């Protein structure tokens, strides 16, 4: 191939730069704000932080009665941030695990065992995405109340898996479907059961797709604000998004932004670690379509 002219290279470089800045700038901005002292927040340059401090983060973990910051102690409220952190951890980990287990089972059934009508089952499960969520929480509240899960984390563990499940089943089942049957056949002929063949052969093979499904469900749960705020009422039962939504934002702006970062950083790190696997898994699941 002939070498590219200089302007094409320059164009490519600047497009890459532009895309990177566009994607990262809002995140950078939120990070910078959270590292500022109250003084710098008011008088400093909004785009940079000169004297970075972790006091906004520390403030989240402080209890009542401590004075910090510009506005003064009288106006400060304290928040059970540690509880929120713990709840978030439980809900997110539980949801991802549940979503993976349930969609793995369903996808194996649909893609591998192929019961009659499997194609339609797959479509119907995916079609649940068209159900409008708008005021669904009104009747959903009745369901949650009926189960006695009002103001309980278990309510979220019941509702959240349904949001990522359809896509995960779709993705995993198309992956299983395009695996050649020889993959299991040898083991089955040797007398292994379906279960053994699944755990020994299929499961290890499908690691990238599982990673993709896991990251997708983590991203989906982490994006919900509405369901968490509707179903978790008392402060000690809330997750971070629901809790941050109740903060007196005009007074606690810096603490709120610190809370945002505190929640975002672990999620982003997990996603970053598995980012390559995510693409590989999506690719593996999509090969079938073309």
């Amino acid at each position, binding site marked *: 191939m002939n070498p590219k002219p200089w302007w094409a290279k320059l164009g*490519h470089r600047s497009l*890459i730069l532009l*895309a990177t800045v*566009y*994607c*990262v700038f*809002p*995140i950078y*901005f*939120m990070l910078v*704000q959270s590292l500022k002292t109250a003084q710098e927040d*008011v008088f400093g340059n*909004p785009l940079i932080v000169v004297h970075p401090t972790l006091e906004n983060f520390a403030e989240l973990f402080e209890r009542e009665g401590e004075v910090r910051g*510009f506005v003064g102690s009288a106006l400060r409220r304290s928040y059970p941030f540690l509880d929120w952190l713990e709840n978030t951890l439980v809900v997110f980990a539980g949801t991802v695990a549940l979503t993976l287990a349930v*969609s793995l*089972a369903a996808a194996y*059934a649909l893609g591998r*065992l*192929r*019961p009659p009508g499997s*194609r339609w*089952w797959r479509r119907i*499960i995916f*079609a*649940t*995405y*068209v159900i*409008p*969520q*708008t*005021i*669904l929480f*009104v*009747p959903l509240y009745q369901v949650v109340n009926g189960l006695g899960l009002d103001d309980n984390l278990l309510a979220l563990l019941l509702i959240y*898996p*349904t949001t990522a499940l359809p896509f995960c089943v779709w993705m995993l089942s198309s992956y299983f*479907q*395009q*695996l050649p*049957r020889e993959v*299991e056949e040898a083991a089955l002929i040797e007398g292994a059961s*379906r279960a053994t063949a699944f755990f020994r052969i299929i499961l290890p093979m499908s690691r990238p797709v599982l990673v993709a499904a896991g990251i997708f469900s983590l*991203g989906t749960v*982490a994006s*919900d604000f*509405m369901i*968490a705020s509707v179903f978790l009422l008392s402060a000690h039962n809330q997750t971070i*998004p629901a809790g941050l*939504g109740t903060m007196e934002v005009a007074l606690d702006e810096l603490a*709120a932004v610190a809370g*945002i970062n505190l*929640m*975002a950083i672990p*999620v982003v790190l997990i996603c*970053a670690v598995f*980012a390559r696997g995510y693409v590989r898994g*999506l*690719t593996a699941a999509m090969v079938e*379509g*073309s």
Partner: protein
Amino acid sequence: MAPVSARWTRRRRDVATAYLLLAPAVLLLVSVLAYPLGWEVWTSFTSLSPLQAGATAFVGLENYRQQFEDPQFWRAATVTVVYAAVTSVAKLALGLGFALLLVRPFRGRALVFLAIFLPWAYPASVSVIGWYWTLSPPISTAYAVSMGNLKYSVDSIFGGGAWAFLSVTLFNIWRGSSFIGVLLLAGINAIPAELFEYALLESKSPWRRFRLVTVPLLKPFLALGAFLSLTSAFADLANVWMLTAGRIVFPVIGTHAYWLAINAGQYGPASALSLMLVPLLLGALLVLFRLFDTPERETA
């Protein structure tokens, strides 16, 4: 005879196992969605309201008819359609751009990929709060004045509330283009590389290759991205609510229904409203199935 019947019992056992394995997923979806969906459909035909003293009456299609006569509905519907169309097109275009940028190797590609993956990976539940803070900062912050000026100039050109709506749109595009970019990158990787190499031999014009080869091959993935983008845009209640702090000047169907249900106590019309989006989404879904689900290959 024996091996045939052995295979037959094996098949029957497989089918039974399949239904057993399918059960948790179906049970979960049914328990969470079936009753609420049924409730919503039923309520859309009744006058159910927590504020109403008398018994709930069956009113047939009255709630739907009433919406069509309400100028507020048409306003909300227009805003919703424009919002969904603008965000979806922008997300697909940007996402395709990202994917094409990342598909060929260059120095630092892994880092740029991570940067493009970030807006989606960054939890939207909190980034939406952060965006709200950034775009409508508290009066004390250093950039409050410049951001305020921006807000007033946008609002004075397009009318009050335009800035808030613009921020919702920008947020939706920012996060969605990241997701679609990664999805399309995976899609391109899934297409056999030889197809692109043939195309390179056939035509020298990159634009022709893009139009005649890349786009048609990516069609199923574009459709998947478009469908997921439409469902999120139509259902985009939380983001609009958050980013405008509930001061809805440009209502979408979602916020209009929410307002009717929660503030005005009119569950019937609110249900009818939210269900009106279903035919549109079902249409999009059928297109998606046609594009994505065609090759029914014989496997295991």
